[in-house]
């Protein structure tokens, strides 16, 4: 106690004894600003009689999620649900749900998944189609004579999937704190998905910050966030078997005859199916044949013959049971259990992904929900992540015999050569010129 008093006297701040409020104007101001921003959330809805609302019942979902051991806290969840109401009203969304939360080093993102309105087109142009960009442009060095030209030809750009299909089936809105404005994420491109697979970066919490990584990521953090959301959704969005059925055009549609399943029976991986399409190696959900396009591009370079027809890439079917999921790093991909051991009658079935730590699903009666909260990164094995090695450097000059290094001749070799030459010298029938050259060579050696 005495020490503390002494320190306070020494530092002259008098922090612990004096009045406290007057010392922190900047922090207070930030808090007050946030409170002012959150105030409009608590206004009464204009039309409270509306029954058929696209608004999800976030508090109810969070109650079930809490049984699963995941949640964001009751008060915070309610604030989020008010923020979602604000979003639905301002954007006139047909249907949306709380997708989850992605933590970042300086801030986190609350993510809402929404369906596109019928016939809606995205205004954002496809960076791949615009020009050759989208990929990282090589630094433009002035061309100089005699210097080798890079042999690297970028692979043909895979076209983006149209909005409302495949990896772009839903649009996503994010905000960092309920009350702050919602930001719509741009649609994802296949190049971004493939690049996101080979990097392992944490989010910072600022959508505009660049993603500094190797291999380079095409886009900023908003694109990276969208790519990770697409990967997480494709990998971990699951539903009880029978809830969805395949429609005419191979799309999922809710099954009207679905009957609720006992939670105890849901504690089995074969009772769950994936209802989001798998993202292929190409970065799309449906395979795009690029061989035609590639042939056109490379005809001038005379490489068309070398191109081989790539076999069509096929992912697992929609509505494949989870029990068929591949095991990675020796870890079963899912953990499935009942939420309560003491009152199993009223428990819900809970599913937790081990490959995407933070991805959860629950099923209770006819209801189910998927929720993600975590750092947005995939589990990468017990040994940690190992980054991709850079490709071998291009040779600076053509290699030939004149540049190949040969070992220096030893004394014995020289002696042998001299003997051989002398022998030739003595032997008749040889040109004079030849001999002279040989002699010169000898002297050089």
């Amino acid at each position, binding site marked *: 106690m005495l020490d503390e008093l002494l320190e306070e006297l020494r530092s002259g701040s008098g922090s612990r004894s004096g009045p406290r409020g007057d010392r922190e104007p900047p922090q207070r101001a930030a808090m007050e600003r946030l409170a002012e921003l959150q105030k409009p959330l608590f206004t009464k809805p204009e039309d409270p009689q509306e029954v058929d609302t696209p608004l999800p019942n976030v508090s109810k979902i969070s109650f079930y999620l809490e049984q699963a051991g995941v949640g964001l806290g009751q008060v915070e969840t309610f604030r989020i649900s008010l923020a979602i109401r604000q979003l639905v009203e301002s954007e006139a969304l047909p249907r949306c749900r709380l997708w989850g939360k992605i933590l970042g080093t300086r801030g986190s993102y609350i993510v809402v998944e929404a369906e596109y309105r019928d016939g809606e087109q995205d205004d954002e142009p496809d960076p791949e189609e615009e020009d050759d960009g989208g990929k990282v442009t090589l630094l433009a060095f002035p061309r100089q004579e005699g210097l080798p030209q890079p042999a690297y030809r970028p692979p043909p750009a895979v076209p983006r999937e149209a909005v409302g299909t495949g990896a772009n089936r839903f649009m996503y809105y994010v905000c960092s704190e309920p009350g702050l404005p919602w930001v719509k994420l741009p649609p994802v491109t296949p190049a971004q998905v493939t690049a996101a697979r080979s990097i392992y970066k944490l989010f910072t919490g600022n959508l505009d910050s660049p993603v500094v990584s190797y291999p380079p990521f095409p886009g900023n953090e908003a694109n990276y966030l969208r790519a990770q959301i697409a990967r997480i959704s494709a990998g971990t969005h699951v539903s009880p078997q029978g809830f969805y059925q395949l429609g005419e055009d191979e799309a999922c549609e809710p099954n009207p005859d679905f009957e609720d399943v006992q939670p105890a029976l849901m504690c089995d991986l074969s009772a769950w199916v994936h209802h989001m399409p798998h993202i292929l190696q190409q970065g799309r959900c449906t395979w795009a044949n690029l061989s035609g396009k590639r042939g056109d591009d490379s005809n001038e370079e005379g490489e068309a013959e070398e191109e081989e027809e790539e076999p069509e890439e096929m992912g697992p079917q929609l509505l494949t049971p989870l029990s068929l999921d591949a095991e990675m790093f020796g870890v079963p991909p899912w953990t499935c259990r009942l939420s309560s051991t003491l009152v199993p009658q009223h428990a819900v079935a809970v599913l937790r992904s081990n490959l995407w730590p933070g991805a959860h699903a629950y099923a209770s009666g006819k209801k189910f929900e998927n929720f993600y*909260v975590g750092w947005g990164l995939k589990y990468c094995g017990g040994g940690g992540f190992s980054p991709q090695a850079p490709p071998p450097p291009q040779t600076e000059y053509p290699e030939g015999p004149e540049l190949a290094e040969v070992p220096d001749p030893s004394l014995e070799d020289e002696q042998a050569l001299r003997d051989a030459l002398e022998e030739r010298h003595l032997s008749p029938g040889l040109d004079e010129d030849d001999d002279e050259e040989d002699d010169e060579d000898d002297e050089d050696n």
Partner: protein
Amino acid sequence: MDSDLFCSAMEFVAGSGSVLTSEQKAAMQTSFVILKKNYKFERVLFWGKILGIKEDYFIVQGRGEDELKDRKNLYSFNCMDWFLLPPATESMINEVSKTAKGHFTGDPSFVYEQVGSESTEAVSKVNEEKRLAVSVHQIDEEVSVVPRGAFIRTPQGLVHINCSFSGLSESEAKKLDNFLHFSEPKNLKKKSILELAGRNLARDFLDALSDDVPEGSWSLQLESGGQVCVIRSLLWPGLTFFHVPMTLQHGHVYIGPGIKNLSLPFQL
């Protein structure tokens, strides 16, 4: 986190996404009282939860007279039947770090095996209970956090709760140097006398988080409308610390897979 704060504190750390069910919270509160009585602890803390493939381990820490040294850890699956974890020794840590990798299984008798290199041919075996003890010990050593001034070292060398601590101010709570590792200091001895000149012997006997390598292995944010200071470790993802400025409320909890993040250098 302290058992007295348990319910309110779980709400503060919920921003990381992990909560306990009402069933678990209720069982915990009963267990705290029983454990405190049976093991004669001065204080009982909810340490956290380690997620396993089959079962999760709930972990409670009991503290004796010396907050830093008199510690006992107990684990349970149902928050009711508790088992004492063996103290982690140097040899145990070496054994575990060589052998055990990946997720916990949820079975304390599960044996991890690692065949040694070709020359030695030795098979090292370690069971999961030992691994759990080592992981808990490592997390305590590397990432347990307290606000500066919350604990004092008495002239006898014992570490006690500082009764006159009234919380960090809001501006202090935004800086990482006001949060300390609650484990035996390692960096303090390396510091020059000049750096330690303004130090208060009773309070500043611990390492500050801001000295950690790599820089940026902590994420400090203000949550719940800027009213709670939350620190998350990136080295052990799952560890969340909270402190409500100007109050005594602080604590940390680990809810995660119990795996150290070896990929951190690539993530920043």
